[in-house]
């Protein structure tokens, strides 16, 4: 047992790192020997936090792992705190991290030294959509009507609320501005829930909240969904409000804004871990995805359920990095060297 553990912890990853051995599903698969720390590089109550705590709940309820999974919020420095910790924990098989777009945006905007290549990709759990929301009492019935009004009112008249500065919401706002030839005043808030409430209270004119952040207000008839920033409609056809399902929300492309943006909700772990360790977690998330709780959560939050692991996942991430760099560069958000 001890020798095995030593192998898993030290020697094998070392050899694997030099490409000397390929560990092809050993007879006794690796399993965590102590509680696994699940780092959330965001505050409590946000989208990543909700998902991580749901996973913790599912793992505990269905007994998917012998050791406990313990979520820890490390939100300092727009998530950099969490990422730096995982970067520093090279070879630690008892640490995983859930990511959002700040995996790319934080190092680019602040110059904090880390990159996703410092981590081992485990699995993409889903992609989170972005929807353009307005207050239901406003007269705009479509994205086109809304953007025409924004254009007519002149630059900086309409206020767009979002989470954080130089992160996904602001990047998307800049992308909309470029595509539609308008200019918003972007106002950063601390969390998605607060942004949705500010829109209900009419302190701002529009938001690009994720579905899960605004669904409650949408169902209550306080907000209106204008369009979704994805290349196809959200597939969920069950009625969410009295009249609409997520599928009824048109894509922004249909509405004439050719802007697409989805956010990664994926799992990474420290570099230098053995492939069998990664396999264990991939298996774990396969099991999580099969549970009814997960399926329900996916539907409620209208997630894009793309699931990737291994090389396809890494390829997706590196493409997304290039995309973010371009968007941030255009918006002038890159940290000055």
């Amino acid at each position, binding site marked *: 047992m001890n020798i095995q553990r030593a192998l898993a912890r030290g020697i094998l990853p070392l050899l694997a790192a030099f490409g000397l051995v390929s560990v092809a599903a050993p007879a006794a698969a690796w399993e965590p020997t102590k509680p696994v720390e699940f780092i959330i590089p965001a*505050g*409590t*109550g946000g989208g990543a936090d*909700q998902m991580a705590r749901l996973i913790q709940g599912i793992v505990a309820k269905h007994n998917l792992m012998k050791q406990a999974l313990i979520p820890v919020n490390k939100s*300092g*420095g*727009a998530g950099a*705190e969490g990422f730096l910790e995982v970067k520093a924990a090279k070879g630690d098989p008892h640490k995983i991290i859930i990511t959002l777009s700040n995996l790319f945006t934080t190092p680019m905007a602040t110059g904090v030294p880390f990159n996703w290549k410092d981590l081992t990709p485990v699995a993409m759990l889903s992609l989170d959509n972005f929807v353009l929301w307005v207050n239901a009492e406003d007269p705009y019935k479509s994205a086109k009507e809304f953007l025409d009004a924004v254009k007519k009112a002149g630059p900086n008249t309409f206020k767009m609320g979002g989470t954080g500065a130089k992160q996904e919401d602001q990047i998307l706002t800049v992308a909309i501005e470029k595509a539609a030839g308008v200019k918003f005043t972007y106002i950063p808030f601390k969390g998605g829930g607060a942004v*949705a409430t500010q829109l209900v209270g009419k302190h701002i004119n529009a938001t690009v909240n994720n579905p899960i952040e605004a669904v*409650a207000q949408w169902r209550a008839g306080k907000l209106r969904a204008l369009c979704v920033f994805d290349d196809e409609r959200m597939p969920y056809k069950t009625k969410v409000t009295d009249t609409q399902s997520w599928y009824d929300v048109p894509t922004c492309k249909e509405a004439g804004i050719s802007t697409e943006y989805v956010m990664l909700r994926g799992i990474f772990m420290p570099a230098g871990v053995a492939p069998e360790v990664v396999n264990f977690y991939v298996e774990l998330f396969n099991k999580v995805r099969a549970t009814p709780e997960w399926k329900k959560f996916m539907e409620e939050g209208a997630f894009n359920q793309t699931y990737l692991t291994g090389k396809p996942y890494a390829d997706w991430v590196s493409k997304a990095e290039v995309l973010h760099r371009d968007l941030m560069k255009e918006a002038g958000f890159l940290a000055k060297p």
Partner: protein
Amino acid sequence: MEEINALFHGFSVALTPFNLLLMFIGVTLGVLIGVLPGLGGANGIAILLPLTFTMPPTSAVIMLSCIYWGALFGGAITSILFNIPGEPWSVATTFDGYPMAQQGKAGEALTTAFTSSFIGAFFAIVMITFLAPLVAKFALQFGPPEFFAVFFLTFCSFIGMGKEPPFKILVAMMLGFALAAVGIDTVTGQLRLIFGWHELMRGFDFLIAVIGLFGIGEILLSMEEGLSFSGRTAKINTRIVIETWKKLPKYWMTSLRSCVIGCWMGITPGGATPASFMSYGIAKRMSPDGAKFGTGQAEGVIAPETAAHAAGTAALLPMLSLGIPGSPTAAVLLGGLLIWGLQPGPLLFVEQKDFVWGLIASMYLGNIAGLIIVLTCVPLFAAILRVPFSIIAPVIVVICAIGAYTVHNAMLDIWLMLLFGVMGYAFKKLSYPLAPLVLALVLGDQAEGAFRQAMLMSQGDMRIFFSNWLVGSIMGLGLLMLVWPVLGKLVAQLRKSAA
């Protein structure tokens, strides 16, 4: 009357033997969590949340809200006995609670604190029961300018109270603001004041500073006076609760005012911390004994405790009805709701009647259960002060270190705690005040954030702070508080010249 029926239905849902058992377990666990600084109600609930997934949602939320009650009650214990606030909103409780304990009135201070918490929370629950829909609408009125106005009012009601040299007050307060600014700037996303040291990125957490300044600083101070705590002579008898209760009714005005402040701040959601500071500041202004605040006045314990707990309770309302958490604990509970398949938001009250009214009923019951448990333990808590100093002092240092570590799981924070401890000692000796420093550290970045959001909205026009009746009247109230001491003097002079 509809509410009353619904509430009684709620009681019938909550009052099963199984749920009652959960309540008592929850409160006891909560007190334990509240006593350990750093391991606040939010952490406690986050840690124990998974345990509840196997129960029906109503039982689960009853247990969790009882943990929350317990933690609220527990936070006051360390503040009063050792000057270590376990939670941000317990800081104001130390101002008069700890001097009371030093004078041997620990039992009285604890009873006052617990009773006040109960009253504050109870007031808030009654409000939630009857005014929920109305109140939820009020919360929507609050945008960035209104939030800034609330912070402004908090600072104004607290400023100019100290007896320390004015320039030292200034330096202490500004130091608090400077520490609060360390880390990432919310509005521009730039890193501020970290000088390339990435460990500082998470900023100076308030709890680390407070554990050091108050907890460690206090141990160093008591060391100087020889190996003892001054509260040792506390008389401990079981009738202390009744005796204290006899004295409390005369402070009804302070209680009522604090309840209102607390509910208002909980709903908006400004939160329990500004509520406690604001309530303490206003009580000091209004009370005839105002000048004696800080020397161990019962009123100085009543005001912050009542307001903090009214706010903490009222914060659950926006969470349930709007889906915005008014406190970190409410945020974690919100996550719990989602896992149980309940969608918080305006429709929760319509679609999940059993759950909502079961929860409200459990608030009544949990609060009462909590009060009974903590009050019976008052003599026990007070007896802790009788443990010899050379045993309790290192244990407190250990608890402080653990508390500092658990806030962010960072070793650096333990070093910072020690540094803050030395600073707290030096500040106390040289009469730099700690309260403005702490207030600025807790609310500084939120106030700045709200101000700059408002400036973005108005494109730099300051008139936004007087643009509607709500923000205008809060700002006006703040300005009134600012000139209050001057006004008081003027009135006194006029009276003198008239006489």
